[in-house]
Each structure stands twice: as structure tokens, then as C-alpha cells.
């Protein structure tokens, strides 16, 4: 839970670097906390993936309490879709796949010679079982069956071009273990001796850490080379950073405002791969019951113009956040999906004049209190963020101050997570600093579908159900149609046409006012291990908590000596 509220401590250590040596001598019991092969003993990779103590052994891919390291190191997908960079899917348990002409039927060739870590051979039957298995059944699946040991065919109600990634990235589970687990069991089962095909398997667990040891029968020849992975439970980033600097952690992903002291001695390298948009949700649709000035597109545009995203990034996100595009295409990853003439970036500096012009053009006039108003309604709104999510709280404070410059009154307030969720799902908010989920493939489609289509929203007062994300109540028939059309084609050009319609709409309408792309910082021990994903070669999503991606990373690592 790197991003669990209240625990996201921004922290660079000034005094730390100097004290490393001291600490090492202090913790003489094992001064190089099992890092790499440097000490000749068996190599251990110490990982913090954000888990807090007490750790509970739970390696069940269908459980909500699943431990980091389950997806990837233990269970593997058919294909790996890299969310960090554009590129073809990486074959894992699958060798190749093809669609029928309308994309409703998928045929997958599975890998031969793979065995589960209990010795049972892996076959296409396991894949079929997984897809048919109640807790993981993909939406719209008609049937899935193994035609032979290496071929599985799945039929769907609709075209799967845009959802196939989710299907292929799901963990494949062994039929012989799970077939006698009922759906409910499957959820409440801890699965402590997880049987997977991955490079590692469970060795031991305690409330403070659990250890995975390498799978001798792993299907990739001569891999993995790192003997053990030790996943630690740590309660806050301050401790984590101290441990990172003192060589007790080799791989972690967390927010550190000032990385210089950590990376100073060259042992630790940092990769920043911003993924998740941070935006201002606006309850934008008066027709669905939203109230307040922000329901007027002019006000939203004014706010968009008056924001000084550079200051927000530097003060609230310590200059670690990425630059966002109002099209929500993640640049440069989704370059090919950026429609002709669409802005690559949201304005990075404030333009109060432009903002005020937008307002005056829309018939607003400045009141005696310096705040614009129209038909007696002042442009005054409250901007809520979840209490304790400091970067959001800070951003909100800054936004409030910046908006004032353009005669817009924004009151920044905080509320408990429960309350914010309530407001968000029921639509009883005006403005809200909050996050969006980045897409897990190099394509903004998922965002357009989940956050901008009418199906995914509800009138104000009705709760937006779990799994739907259109909290701004945005509704535009053209966009809806375009999304459907985009899903139905496998041809990039055709899809881009549809995206042009969507992007054009949302860039003007701004139901979600883009702020930044929140950072995802990964710290790697490059002195004792090689083979990490780097800015040059992002073969996989780098953070230690990355589902499936972490499997590729650990397989690719080798201890130096």
C-alpha cells in the first residue's frame, strides 16, 4: 500500500547519507542485509512492496488480502502487457493468440513443458478452468474450452480487442488444486502453499516478513538466479527510506521527495514512471442533478487556465509528478493515440487574464468582493480531498490560492475517506482532488470507457456502483458511440478516428480538470543486482508492487559478485 493514506510520507534524508557507515557497523549482526552475492552466501533480494506489519500469509490471487509477490513471482499470466511502454505483449504461459474476424472468439496456443511447482504438468485445461472459474470469470464469456493440451478457445458476447489485456494478464491457476474449491472458499482461502508456475515459491512466512525461494523446475532455462526474495512488512516510508539507505532493502517503490541522499553513493538507482492521473473531479452535469458553478463549462475552463501546475507539481508533488495531457493519453507511451491537433500538455503556468476572459465572455461579472458572479450566483465552490492524503490536501490548498487570482473562490476542505467516497459515489460534491487509474496497456481506451461513458455513471443521489468510475456524471452521446465503435475494431487508424471525437469533447468540456500524472518511483539496488528495468529499457513496469510485472523483473535479475 505505497499509496495508503496517512502513510505516504514524503521524505529525503539530508543527514542520512553521512550516517550510513555508522549504521552498517551498528547493525553488525548482518551489515549487508542479504544484499546480492557480494558476501558469497546465497543471494537474497530484500523487497518492500508497501505491505505493513503484521503480514498475513495469503497467496490467493482471488483474495482481497493477497500478498505482494503472489502475482508474477508465483502465479503467471498468459501474456504480459507492459503498461510502462508501448510494445507487443510478452508470451508467458501463452505462446500466441488470434481473434476471429469479429473479435468475439479467441484462440490461444499455450506453452509446452511447463510444470506447476508441485510437479503436475501445466496444460491448456488449466487455462480453460481458470476462465470458467466463478471468482475470475471474465464478463461476457460464453464458453472456454481446451481443444487439446496446448490450445484453448474462448467465445465472448462482444468483441474483445480492448479487453483482451485484462483477460491475458489474469493469473492462471492449477485446475487440480482449485477445482474442489467453491467460489466462497476461493475467496476466504489463504492458499499458504501456493502452487503456481512462476519462478518462485513460498518458503516461510512471519508477521514481519515472508520469504520466497526459487523454483528449481522453472520453465525459463537457468532462471531465476536470485536464490530468495524476502518481502518485508514496514509501516511507514520514513522507516523504509532509512532501511533503503542502510542497505536493508534492495527493491522498493515509494514516494521520496528528495532522492539525492538515497542515490548519492550510486548503490541505489531511481526510476520514475508516472502512471496515474491526478485530477479535479467536477460534478459537471446539471442534467444529472449536479449543482454549483462548476456545472458551467466556462467555470471549469477558467479553473483549468488559472492553475499553475508547475507550482502544484513542485510544492505538492515535489517535482516528481509527470506532465498530464488533457486527452488522458499517457505521453510518450500513448503517442500514437494522441489525435491530430490535440494538446500534448495541459497549460503548465497560470494565465489569470485568459481565465477571466473566459468568464466575462460567458457573462460573468466581478463582484465587489473580487469574485465573479452570474445571475447573483458567485463563482464559489468547495474543493474536497481525503484527509491525510497529503499530496492531495496540499494540491487542494494551492489550487484554492491560485484560483483566487482569477476571481474564483475555491474553499479547500478535507474529509475522511469514508465521507469522500460517499460524496464521490453519490455525486454530492462540487470539486474533488482525486486520482484516476492509469490504463494497464499502452492505450487510453479503458479511461474513456470507465470515466467518460454514460453507462458508467448514475444520477446525483444514486450510488455509482462498484467498478464504475464516471463520478463527474459526464454524459455525451457522441463519446458513448465513439467508445463503442473503438472497441469493435482492431484497426489502429479506425480507432484513432473514434478517439479524435472523444478527445475533442473532453478537452473542451473538462469534466475532470487534469492536474498531473502522479509519480511512481522505484528504487533498485544496482550495485548488487543487475537486469533492472531502466528509463532506456522499460521491459516491464518497475515498481516492486507491480502485479505480474514484478515476476518479469525478478526473473531478469542477476546478483553481481
Amino acid at each position, binding site marked *: *500500500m*505505497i*499509496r*495508503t*493514506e496517512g502513510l505516504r510520507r514524503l521524505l529525503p*534524508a539530508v543527514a542520512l547519507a553521512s*550516517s550510513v557507515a*555508522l*549504521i552498517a*557497523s*551498528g*547493525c553488525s*549482526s*548482518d551489515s549487508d*542485509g*542479504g544484499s546480492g552475492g557480494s558476501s558469497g552466501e546465497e543471494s537474497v533480494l*530484500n523487497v518492500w512492496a508497501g505491505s505493513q*506489519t*503484521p503480514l*498475513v500469509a*495469503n497467496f490467493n*490471487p482471488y*483474495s*482481497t*488480502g493477497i500478498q505482494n509477490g503472489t502475482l508474477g513471482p508465483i502465479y503467471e499470466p498468459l501474456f504480459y502487457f507492459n503498461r510502462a511502454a508501448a510494445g507487443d505483449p510478452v508470451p508467458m504461459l501463452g505462446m500466441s493468440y488470434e481473434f476471429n474476424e469479429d473479435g468475439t472468439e479467441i484462440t490461444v496456443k499455450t506453452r509446452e513443458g511447463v510444470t506447476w511447482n508441485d510437479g503436475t504438468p501445466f496444460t491448456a485445461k488449466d487455462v480453460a478452468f481458470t476462465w470458467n472459474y466463478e*471468482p*475470475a*470469470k471474465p464478463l461476457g464469456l460464453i464458453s472456454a474450452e481446451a481443444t487439446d493440451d496446448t490450445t484453448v478457445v474462448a467465445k465472448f458476447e462482444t468483441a474483445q480487442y480492448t479487453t483482451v489485456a*485484462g483477460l491475458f494478464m*489474469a493469473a492462471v491457476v492449477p485446475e487440480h488444486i482449485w477445482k474442489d474449491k467453491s*467460489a*466462497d472458499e476461493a*475467496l*476466504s482461502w*489463504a492458499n499458504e502453499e501456493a502452487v503456481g508456475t512462476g519462478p518462485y515459491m513460498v518458503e*516461510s512466512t*512471519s508477521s*514481519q*516478513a515472508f520469504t520466497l525461494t526459487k523454483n528449481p523446475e522453472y520453465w525459463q532455462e537457468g532462471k531465476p538466479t536470485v536464490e530468495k526474495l*524476502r518481502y*518485508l512488512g*514496514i*509501516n*511507514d516510508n520514513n*522507516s523504509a527510506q*532509512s*532501511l533503503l539507505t542502510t542497505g536493508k532493502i534492495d527493491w522498493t517503490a515509494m514516494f521520496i521527495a528528495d532522492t539525492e541522499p538515497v542515490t548519492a553513493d550510486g548503490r541505489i538507482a531511481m526510476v520514475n514512471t508516472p502512471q496515474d492521473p491526478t485530477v479535479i473531479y467536477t460534478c459537471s452535469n446539471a442534467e444529472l442533478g449536479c449543482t454549483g458553478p462548476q456545472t458551467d463549462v466556462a467555470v471549469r475552463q477558467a479553473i483549468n487556465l488559472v492553475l499553475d501546475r508547475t507550482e502544484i507539481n513542485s510544492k505538492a508533488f515535489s517535482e516528481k509528478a509527470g506532465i498530464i495531457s488533457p486527452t488522458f493519453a499517457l505521453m510518450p507511451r500513448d503517442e500514437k493515440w494522441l489525435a491530430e491537433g490535440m494538446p500534448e500538455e495541459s497549460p503548465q503556468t497560470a494565465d489569470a487574464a485568459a481565465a477571466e476572459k473566459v468568464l466575462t465572455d460567458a457573462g460573468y461579472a466581478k463582484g465587489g468582493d473580487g469574485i465573479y458572479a452570474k445571475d447573483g450566483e458567485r463563482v464559489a465552490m468547495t474543493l474536497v480531498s481525503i484527509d491525510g492524503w497529503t499530496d492531495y490536501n496540499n494540491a487542494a490548498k494551492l489550487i484554492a490560492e491560485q484560483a483566487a487570482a482569477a476571481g474564483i473562490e475555491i474553499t479547500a476542505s478535507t474529509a475522511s*475517506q*469514508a*465521507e469522500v*467516497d*460517499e460524496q464521490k*459515489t453519490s455525486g454530492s460534491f462540487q470539486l474533488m482532488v482525486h486520482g484516476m*487509474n492509469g490504463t*494497464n496497456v499502452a492505450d487510453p481506451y479503458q479511461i474513456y470507457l470507465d470515466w467518460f461513458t454514460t453507462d458508467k455513471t448514475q444520477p446525483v443521489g444514486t450510488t455509482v456502483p*462498484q*467498478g464504475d468510475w464516471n463520478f463527474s456524471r459526464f454524459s455525451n452521446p457522441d463519446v458513448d458511440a465513439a467508445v463503442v465503435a473503438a472497441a469493435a475494431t482492431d484497426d489502429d487508424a479506425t480507432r484513432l478516428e473514434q478517439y479524435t471525437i472523444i478527445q475533442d469533447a473532453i478537452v473542451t468540456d473538462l469534466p475532470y480538470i487534469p492536474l498531473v500524472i502522479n509519480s511512481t518511483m522505484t528504487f533498485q539496488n544496482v550495485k548488487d543486482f543487475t537486469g533492472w528495468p531502466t528509463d532506456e529499457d522499460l521491459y516491464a513496469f518497475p515498481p516492486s*508492487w*507491480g*502485479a505480474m510485472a514484478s515476476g518479469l523483473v525478478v526473473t531478469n535479475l542477476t546478483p553481481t559478485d
Partner: protein
Amino acid sequence: MKFYVRRFAFYLATLWFAVTLNFVLPRLLPGDPATILLQKLARQGGEVTPAMLRSVELLLGTSDGASVWSQYWSYLGSILRGDLGVSISNYPEQVTTLIGQALPWTLALVGLATIISFVLGVLVGAYVGWKRGTWADHIIPATTFMQSVPYFWLALLLIYIFSVTLGWFPIIGGWDTWTFDNPEASFAFLKDVIWHGTLPALTIILSSVGGWLLGMRNMTVSTLSEDYITTAEAKGLRPSRIFMTYAVRNAALPSIAGFTISLGFVVAGSIVMEQVFTYPGLGRLMIQAVQGKDYALMQGVFLVITLTVLAANFIMDMFYGLIDPRARNNG
């Protein structure tokens, strides 16, 4: 007799209060746990898979329309059966299991630290009282400043100075995870545990010793003006004897009577402390529950803490008579 009736009523009432509070509060809860849980998952990896969705629905989706009373009774029933429910933040672990793992750590650390602090405070306090009117009086103000320092603030400073900067003590944990995969019954492990417990214990002692010290000092001073002290002097007893058997023996009674009460406060303080030290105890569990909006766990911990304090009080009731004859054979 009246005494025992009262105590019995006291235990009963406290139990009922703690248990019922746990039942009432969640029903005042705004928002729906399922949504919150999803939020949390979404925050973790930014990916909410359909599998997760379904599991959450299966886990929290259903809510039966049973009446509050029947809910209350079944709740009491499950409590009696020692069933505190399932922890959401550590799904699917049983709350009781989690508490079972954490309790020993807290008991050992907090218990030990408290006793040390108590003994230290009482002895020094008695001495300061005995030496009243001398330099010793200046110890008191000093300690009260210590007492007014926020636990966590002190803990953070201690870590920063002794663990991070000087590296004399570990930064986190109840034992060294890099050396021992699991707790084991070896001398090396014990040593390691003590090494890890030092700073946390120090925090508790530093910030709680002041209270004992002040109380004991004042009690000693007032006791010294009692007639039986004069008698003892007239009897020509040795000062040491007067000090121990006549002054301290009497002056310590209030501290001892109040010991178990203050236990509750110390446990409270240790909650924040455990968070700072990533110590695998109850307090740590509680905070995790709060941050994970894991109400079952939160209430389980609260209940157990209360029970522990009650148990301590019960033990004190049993043994208090031994040290204060006036509390014996009451009728």
C-alpha cells in the same frame, strides 16, 4: 461483602460497556465498507481486477435485514464464542488469530517497561521524598517535563538519534527479520528481541516514570508527618528501617492501588509508540485497523486491551489485601 458486590458490579459493567460500545459504534458508521475497501485496493496498484470486484461483493455485498436486537444477541453470542470476525485489512485472517500473535509482544514490552518505570518511579520518588527540601526536590520538575513530551515525538527523536544517526539500535521491528525468518526459541533470538525492545521500552519509561515519581514523592512526604513515624523514631529504630517499613511501606500503597488503573494509560501511549517502531504488537494492529477502516479488527483490539486492563485489576484485587491489611477480611 459490600466490597465484593461492588467489584463484581464493576467488572460486569465494564465488560458490558466495552462490548456494547463495539456493537453500537459501527452502526453509526457513514459510507459503505465495500466501497472503502475497493478504494483501498484501487489505491494500492491502481488495478481493480474483476476477480477483486467479485470477491469484495461476496465478502461484504450481502446485508441481512435482521432487527437490531437479534443482531445484538447474535453479536454477544459470537463474542462469547470468542469469534471477533474476519479482518478486512488482512483478509481472510481471523481477528482473534491476529490479536493472538500480537498480544504477547505488547504484554511483554509494555508490561515490562511499565513495571520497570513503576519500580523506578516509586523508589526514586520515595528517596526524593525522604530527602525532601534538599537538591533532590529539583528532580521533580525535570521529570514532569519529560512526562509532558508526546510519546511519538520522543520515540521519533530517539529513533532518529540512536537508530538512524548513531546506528546503535534497529530502526524497525520486534526482531531482526534479516536474520530470523521466524521467531524461534534460541538465546540469540532472545538477545535480538531485547535489542529491538530497548528503545520502545525506553520511550515508555521516560514518559511515564514522572507520574509515579511525583505521586510517590508526595505520598512519602505526607507519610513522614504521621504519628507512627514519630513513634518509630522515639523507639530508636534505625533510619533505614523507618524508611522502608514505616514510610515507604505506607506511602507506596496509593501507587500500588493505582498501578493497574494507570496500566490503561500506558497501553494507550504504547499504541502510538508501536506505530513508530513498527513493533508487532496490539497498538500497531489497532492503527493498521484504523487506517484500513478494518472495524472488526479495531474493535477486537479495543476489546482485548480493555480485557487485559480488567484482568490486571482483577489480579490486583486478589493481591491487594496482602500489602494492605486494612483491605482484608472486609465485611
